[in-house]
């Protein structure tokens, strides 16, 4: 730096500014970059790596919050393999995901196609379809507990009006899973809107070209819409799996994990282990398990489904 301004001369007195002035342009840019992303880096250290280190430490300890943590070696980890409640909770979580994710995806895609139609009052329908997804989780849980009420719930009333049986939605372990799937599918508004935006982003010219080539309505959906939408379908699939593995509030409030642990989903089980039975060490191990499952799942989805996704502008 040979050109000196009055400002810089005045700043000579401050050590920090002197140091800064000595930096090359490139170094200054790097410094400024890190200043800008510093909040995130600090947050990552405090709220992600810190807790992860704690979880790592507690993995090998037994701790009930009161006494000092006691070293137990691999006991927490071996315990996991012989825990029938954990096995049950994994089973119901996987079943719930396996049913609710594809169903929600198909339903959201279907609704998005419906509200992509050009009608005069279509905006009203779009609003109606989206509203369920913003209902507060607790209010949502109370509402659905009441809808599924065996004696006085609306759902059983409709079923019985058509001559069906009285179903113990929240009492019968075989039905309760379906109840949870239904209430999840009701709230697909978010992914529906993402699909809708994707549908509106497909250039009309592709449909016209397909039509000229003699493609019918179904062929246009199959050969134009689906390939063009595949990145968005993929995105909704990944998010859907991650969310479904974390189902918690509705299980806590509607069924408290019952009946007969049929809705003891993994996060609820972790929650109870930590804050119910105060087994912080074992709860940490279960948190690692959830982490590992989600990582493995993401890997599989990216590896085997992600490779089939069509990108119009790769590398963007």
């Amino acid at each position, binding site marked *: 730096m040979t050109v000196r301004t009055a400002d810089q001369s005045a700043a000579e007195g401050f050590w920090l500014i002197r140091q800064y002035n000595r930096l090359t342009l490139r170094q200054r840019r790097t410094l400024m970059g890190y200043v800008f992303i510093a909040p995130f880096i600090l*947050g990552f250290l405090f709220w992600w790596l810190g807790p992860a280190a704690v979880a790592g430490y507690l993995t090998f300890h037994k701790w009930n919050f009161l006494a000092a943590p006691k070293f137990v070696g691999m006991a927490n980890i071996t315990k996991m393999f012989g825990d029938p409640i954990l096995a049950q909770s994994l089973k119901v979580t996987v079943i719930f995901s396996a049913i609710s994710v594809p169903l929600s995806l198909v339903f959201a895609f279907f609704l998005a196609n419906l509200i992509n139609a050009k*009608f005069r009052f279509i905006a009203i329908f779009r609003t109606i379809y989206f509203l369920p997804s913003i209902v507060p989780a607790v209010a949502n849980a109370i509402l659905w507990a009441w809808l599924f009420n065996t004696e006085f719930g609306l759902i059983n009333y409709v079923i019985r009006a058509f001559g069906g049986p009285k179903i113990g939605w929240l009492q019968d372990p075989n039905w309760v899973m379906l109840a949870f799937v239904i209430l999840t599918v*009701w709230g697909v508004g978010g992914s529906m809107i993402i699909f809708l935006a994707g549908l509106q982003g497909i250039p*009309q010219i592709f449909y016209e070209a397909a039509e000229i080539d003699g493609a019918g*309505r179904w062929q246009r959906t199959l050969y134009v819409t689906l390939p063009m939408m595949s990145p968005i379908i993929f995105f909704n699939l990944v998010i859907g799996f991650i969310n479904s593995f974390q189902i918690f509030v509705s299980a806590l409030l509607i069924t408290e994990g019952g009946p007969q642990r049929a809705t003891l989903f993994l*996060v609820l089980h972790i929650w109870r282990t930590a804050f119910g039975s105060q087994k912080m060490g074992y709860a940490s191990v279960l948190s690692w398990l959830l982490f590992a499952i989600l990582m493995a799942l993401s890997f599989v989805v990216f590896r085997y489904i992600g490779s089939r996704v069509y990108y119009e502008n790769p590398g963007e």
Partner: protein
Amino acid sequence: MGFSETPADFVDARRQPKSYGDIFFHWLTVFLLVFFAVVMVTPFIWLLSSSLKTQINIFQYPPQLIPNPIVPENYLFAMTYKPFGTYFRNTILVAGLNVTAVVFTSSFCAYGFARMRFPGRDFWFGIVMATLFLPYAVLLVPSFIVFSRLGWVDTFLPLVVPPFFGGGAFNIFLMRQFFRTIPEEIADAARIDGCSEFGVYWRVMLPLSKPALITIGIFTLLFAWNDLIGPVTYLRSPENFTIAVGLASFRSQFDVNWDLQLAASSAVTLPVIVLFFLAQRYFIQGVVMTGLKG
């Protein structure tokens, strides 16, 4: 964006006379639209109707669709039996701090990721994306231990301090995507006029990003209003409860009083729906931006 309808005039102009298939398809679409609208809306109507019934009428088979008599007193009782005023104040406090934190720190970090070039930037952005896909539930227990060591349990601190550190991966991502749509020339012009990098962020980028900032602000507000898992983990004394915890504790106390539970639920839901109608555009924009760009 939003619920606007795309002009399709030229498509219609070259339409041939409608075939029977087209007419059938048109009416099938109308039928399905109405059918699913009824399915989606019925739970809301049922919520409203049940919340206005007497204790006796609510346990009646077959159920009344329009309550007779209508009992708005349920709302009054539900809202005053538990200190919902306090819950509301607490929620507004938490939500207000969260919105402030997210709007300023996520845009600040996003500026670094979107507009600065420096070694390590892509590595750190990779970490941002990793935390985006790494759910909150995984860290629930270890974070609780950290916060209890800090002595923060039963205060608002665990709910309001972390957002000041970057404001969450989702918001950083969204702001970064938005910043990248603003032409760099505008920032360069400001730099030539003697603006520092902070000045470019504060005087140029932030004012140009109002729609995106409003979007993430509304999403944060909605999250703070709806979130149960954070408050229920950290807040112990009833005078610290937020709306969501208050409603959950109301439910456990009035287990069989469905009229009151539903009145409380619909009272808690109403502000969210009002917010949605006021800011529909930003909701849609936010949802869409999570899914599409990138």
